[in-house]
């Protein structure tokens, strides 16, 4: 089996697709970490919220694209509420309190999902445009998964363009690097924080809606993806886009190939990877601040 080239190609595509999902989640989380110094354990819950909102939108409108549009918007709006109610006050409260408040949010969201959508796993169909399979590099692969890979790459390209080539990107990088100095230069850091937080939430919601047709929509999907996402962020280094990319690819490939090549070890591998990185490079592979 492992000698077959198509096996490797299919698994590499699987890994890439998982990596892109991690990327959509971790990029928001890492910039929120880097810019706001905020530990948001509820990021996974926002991803799940995106999937649930997507489910409702897709069922009501009868089209996948309704989910694709509604999930990021609704989740970003919830993010606005969270920001005004909680996040702003918790900014300077230290990691312990942030972990606890957002852990409390995980609990709240969990029961909100159970009350709103029930305990049964839900799902909705992929768009007709991307249903079926297509041929790539000599292997047959589900088109929708290729769409996820493409979407991840598109978001990646857009974000890196914004961050490196535009003024707002320069402001964000300055804020990550030294927020006090950025504020001294006349930048309204608070407003940049708010904007970044909303974009991060929208991307989490988008990831939820995109993942829903592949994975099923369950109340614990947020907690399940939270830990790998946090690992991606910490391995990559807080606050850096490069770190989020590297971490996502690393975890995506290790997890996918680990589970097909060494199923017993797979679950331990990513934790061992995290522990190893933290011991050798305590600030992650590509920390935003040198």
């Amino acid at each position, binding site marked *: 089996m492992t000698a077959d080239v198509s096996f490797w190609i299919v698994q590499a595509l699987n890994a890439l697709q998982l990596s892109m999902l991690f990327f959509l989640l971790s990029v928001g989380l890492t910039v929120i970490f880097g810019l706001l110094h905020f*530990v948001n354990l509820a990021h996974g819950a926002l991803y799940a919220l995106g999937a649930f909102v997507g489910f409702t939108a897709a069922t009501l409108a009868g089209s996948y694209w309704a989910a694709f549009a509604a999930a990021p918007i609704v989740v970003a709006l919830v993010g606005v509420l969270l920001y005004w109610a909680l996040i702003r006050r918790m900014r300077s409260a230290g990691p312990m309190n942030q*972990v*606890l408040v957002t852990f*409390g949010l995980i*609990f709240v969201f969990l029961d909100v999902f*159970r009350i709103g959508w029930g305990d049964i796993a839900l799902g909705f169909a992929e768009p007709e445009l991307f249903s079926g399979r297509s041929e790539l590099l000599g292997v047959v692969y589900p088109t929708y998964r290729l769409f996820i890979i493409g979407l991840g790459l598109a978001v990646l390209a857009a974000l890196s363009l914004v961050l490196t080539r535009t003024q707002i990107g320069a402001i964000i990088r300055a804020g990550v690097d030294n927020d006090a100095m950025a504020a001294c230069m006349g930048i309204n850091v608070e407003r940049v924080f708010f904007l970044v937080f909303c974009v991060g939430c929208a991307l989490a919601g988008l990831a939820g809606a995109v993942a829903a047709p592949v994975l099923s929509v369950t109340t614990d999907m947020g907690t399940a993806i939270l830990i790998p996402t946090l690992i991606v962020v910490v391995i990559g280094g807080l606050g850096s886009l490069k770190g989020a990319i590297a971490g996502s690819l690393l975890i995506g490939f290790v997890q996918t190939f680990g589970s097909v090549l060494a199923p017993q070890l797979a679950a331990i591998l990513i934790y061992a990877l995290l522990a190893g990185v*933290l011991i050798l490079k305590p600030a992650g592979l590509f920390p935003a601040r040198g």
Partner: protein
Amino acid sequence: MFHQTPLKTATVLLLAGLAVAYGLSTGFFGLELLTEVAILAILAIALDLVAGYGGMISLCHGALYGVGAYAFGSATVLLGWGAPAGLAMAVGGGALFAWAIGAVTARTHGIFFIMATLAFGQMAYAYLFESPVFGGNDGLPGVPRLDASALGLDLNDSLTFALTCLALALLAYAVSAALLRSGFGRTLVGIRANEARMRVLGLPVWRHKAAAFGVSGALAGLAGALAAQHTMYISPGLLHWTVSGELLIMVILGGLGTLVGAALGAGVLVFLKHEVSRFTDHWHLVVGLVLIAAVLAGGRGLYGQLEHLWERRRAARRAPPETPAPDEETTGHA
């Protein structure tokens, strides 16, 4: 810094008295709850020791607890060495595992420390979840309780077992308090306050951090061995990171860095969960909101708030009434 104040002593005695009175007056189900509270109190005290006094916010105490339970379970069920050896293995195993984690993570701080402990805890969880030797996902049933008939105790009796766990919780408190009042404990608090300065003073910081984590792990291992005997069944669920998260909730609800608060928090959370589940399935929602409210209210926790009010009243009484301390109001909101 830790001080065994009269208020603390009174709270410990009051809690112990309440627990004994509750144990003597309640039925089987109440005793199960009481046992759970006593075991979790040991675990919460262990966590407060490192989190509250050492500044090491650990997300692996659930795993240490589980390692203790599995050490006890494998010594009794798999190896047939008996419960005393199991207890020793649980305490030793917890201490050793925790010491190793503490030594390796001593260089990391803040969120990186939290994530590193999470990683090690989840590694243990993932290993036990997959491992066929320890029963994997199904866990290990048929864990026996310690035979203490030599002491005239029958631990298979719910009341005796509950009171034994309670006594051990008091012992855990006494050990932690004694440790914190020793030179080692003062050093630990010094590291939390200013690690760089302690290092400059020539202190091998990592060794102290690892040792503190080891002691905490020994207590967590003890709690795990008791939990294994309580339910007579162990499963990987004990090690999951959400257990560690709930422990942090207990500590913050009761009061971080107060020791007695951790035990109080364990009691409050267990009974809150129980009471809420009588009315609704959605205890997560209630606990989540209570937690958020507790942190927003200043994060002192129940005992911490009590101590804060007590200190303020004492300060006010000491100051003459015509010249009130000018910064009294501002410190109240700090």
